[in-house]
């Protein structure tokens, strides 16, 4: 099916198994390749559980797990500090204390300079109601000169969520994503001086949502609606165009147990009437089914609408035009209202 490995079952399994949580359950759900990778991560996160001294409730207490991770990290940091007094490079302290931060840094930024910057906001709900549809916002509008805005989640099987090249848009995007478990969610802005500025929050997916999780598309005839697009445009207080857009698509991750191959919208190009590119958005597998995005951009004054050209990884192109209807949003494009 079209969804992430069914999160409800994963949760339930994880409640009943002790230790090796990600590794074992993931190997059942997403196949050996990803499981191996996650086990490597898991080995570092769940060290105490491997000693057999952690019971179910501890494994489930994310805050306590996070606390243990922090303590573990501080112990490691203390050992490193004690044994390497002459080290010259100062390690970047991750404010979210992610055990995989070093991997993330290498994966997304390579050797480029990176700083943590709390002016970059990542907004998530306080409770994850549905792990297949988690609304998140990445907002780097407090910074100037943003060339690129990358969203990623450290502990997702696929970390990269989306990348925005703003051009004539604000470095801001709201979308819905799938999460596998509690994870840091980060937004990284590449500034014109070549520095990456990173902000983020810890998303606790162990909420308490009692609704049916992840009612995945059950229609056998999803292909009848794939590519159907809906949307609307508003004018923010300062005249910028606020665009909300939904494109029907299964967004298959390729990780589901039934071996459905990856099938997802990988690109949305926002264009003016004369074909000028206003913004490019790269979407990846973690973006929820039927991608629904909110962006703020500068549409040329006389343009009758915004053209959005989508493309999925099978090469199908989906073209839409959102008319510039110009309802007032009342929101400020600077702070999102």
């Amino acid at each position, binding site marked *: 099916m079209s969804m992430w490995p069914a999160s409800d079952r994963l949760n339930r399994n994880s409640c009943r198994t002790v230790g090796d949580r990600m590794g074992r359950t993931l190997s059942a759900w997403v196949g050996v390749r990803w499981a191996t990778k996650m086990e490597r991560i898991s080995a570092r996160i769940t060290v105490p559980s491997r000693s057999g001294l952690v019971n179910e409730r501890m494994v489930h207490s994310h805050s306590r797990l996070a606390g243990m991770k922090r303590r573990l990290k501080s112990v490691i940091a203390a050992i490193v500090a004690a044994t390497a007094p002459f080290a010259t490079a100062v390690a970047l302290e991750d404010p979210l204390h992610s055990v995989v931060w070093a991997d993330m840094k290498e994966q997304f930024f390579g050797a480029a300079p990176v700083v943590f910057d709390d002016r970059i906001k990542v907004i998530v709900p306080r409770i994850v109601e549905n792990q297949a549809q988690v609304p998140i916002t990445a907002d780097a509008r407090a910074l100037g000169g943003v060339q690129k805005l990358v969203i990623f989640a450290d502990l997702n099987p696929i970390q990269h969520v989306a990348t925005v090249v703003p051009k004539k848009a604000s470095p801001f995007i709201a979308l819905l994503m799938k999460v596998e478990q509690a994870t840091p969610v980060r937004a990284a802005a590449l500034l014109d001086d070549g520095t990456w500025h990173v902000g983020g929050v810890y998303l606790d997916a162990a909420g308490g949502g009692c609704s049916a999780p992840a009612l995945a598309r059950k229609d056998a005839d999803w292909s009848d609606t794939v590519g159907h697009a809906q949307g609307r445009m508003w004018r923010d207080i300062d005249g910028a165009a606020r665009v909300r857009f939904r494109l029907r698509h299964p967004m298959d991750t390729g990780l589901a147990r039934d071996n459905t191959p990856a099938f997802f919208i990988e690109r949305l190009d926002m264009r003016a009437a004369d074909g000028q590119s206003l913004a490019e958005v790269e979407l990846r597998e973690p973006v929820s089914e039927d991608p629904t995005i*909110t962006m703020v951009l500068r549409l040329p004054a006389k343009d009758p609408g915004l053209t959005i050209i989508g493309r999925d990884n099978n090469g199908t192109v989906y073209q839409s*035009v959102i008319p510039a209807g110009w309802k007032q949003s009342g929101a400020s494009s600077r702070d999102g209202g």
Partner: protein
Amino acid sequence: MTSGDDKVDVSRRQAIAAFAGIATLPALLAVFDANAAPLVYELRPEPIAPGIWVIRGAQEAIERSNGGAIANITIFDTRDGAVIVDTGPSKRYGLALEALVRQLTGKPVVRAYLTHFHPDHVFGNQAFAANVLSAPRGVIDGLAELGESFASAMYHAAGDWMRGTEVMRPGTECSDGVETIGERRFRLMGLGGHTPSDLALIEETSGILVTGDLTFLDRAPTTPHADLARWRSSLDTLSAIAHARLVPGHGPVEEGARGIAQTRDWLSLVEETIRTAFDRGLSSNEAMAEPLPAWTEKVALARYEFERSVMHFYPKLEAGEWPRVDKAG
């Protein structure tokens, strides 16, 4: 590095590990000990009329700290046996409830009405015989459809409290009308709106009106399966029923109808606030941050449930209200 150095390293590492083990042992044992303590629901029945008690749920979300015991449970003593409304969030709760009822009344539970299919109300079912459990057809079918998903969510949220809990379907289908048990007369009303099928009842000899989650009081209503128009219509029905006291699904038992009014106000507030945010083009996250009026400050979980409601209603609005903009459309 020579092999000699390696040996030194290994022994040093072992020494460090041994030391670390000794140093952390008390802490680890303490953790182990605390978690080894058995989980016990402390059920405190409050008498609300002669032979009638309510066990109040915590005005909280489902968490490990409360074991999911957040919903009100009502107990009626009759000469032919005890009657309860809803069974609680887990097998463990159901068993504790069954024992409590025997202690209070000296009789077994001969009828357990289920107000709707949400897990905090029906996952104690295993403590009772199937034919004792009675619910409208919609509740039975809904539980069959979504019970497993609810169980997963409950295991996730409440953890070990849920141990051994399985979905159990009621064996008795009830319909509108009066069921007489002993000296008591239970008038059953199949309504809906909080979920597709909600049961409310009034025990006519005492005037106790039990609404299930059609009413919440001083705790924000939940909307994952709500149909707001139908919910309002059910509230109209309840408003017309003369009663001595009203037992809401969550919140205190009172004489008047404050639960009905407050639930109605909340539904209007949520619908209008979300609708306005949607019409202004706000994203889900922006809508969740919209201000709520001052009166909601006295309502437990107001912001929490409002955020959940945004996640329930926004996708429907987006799918239902936005015009098609693709070339094919």
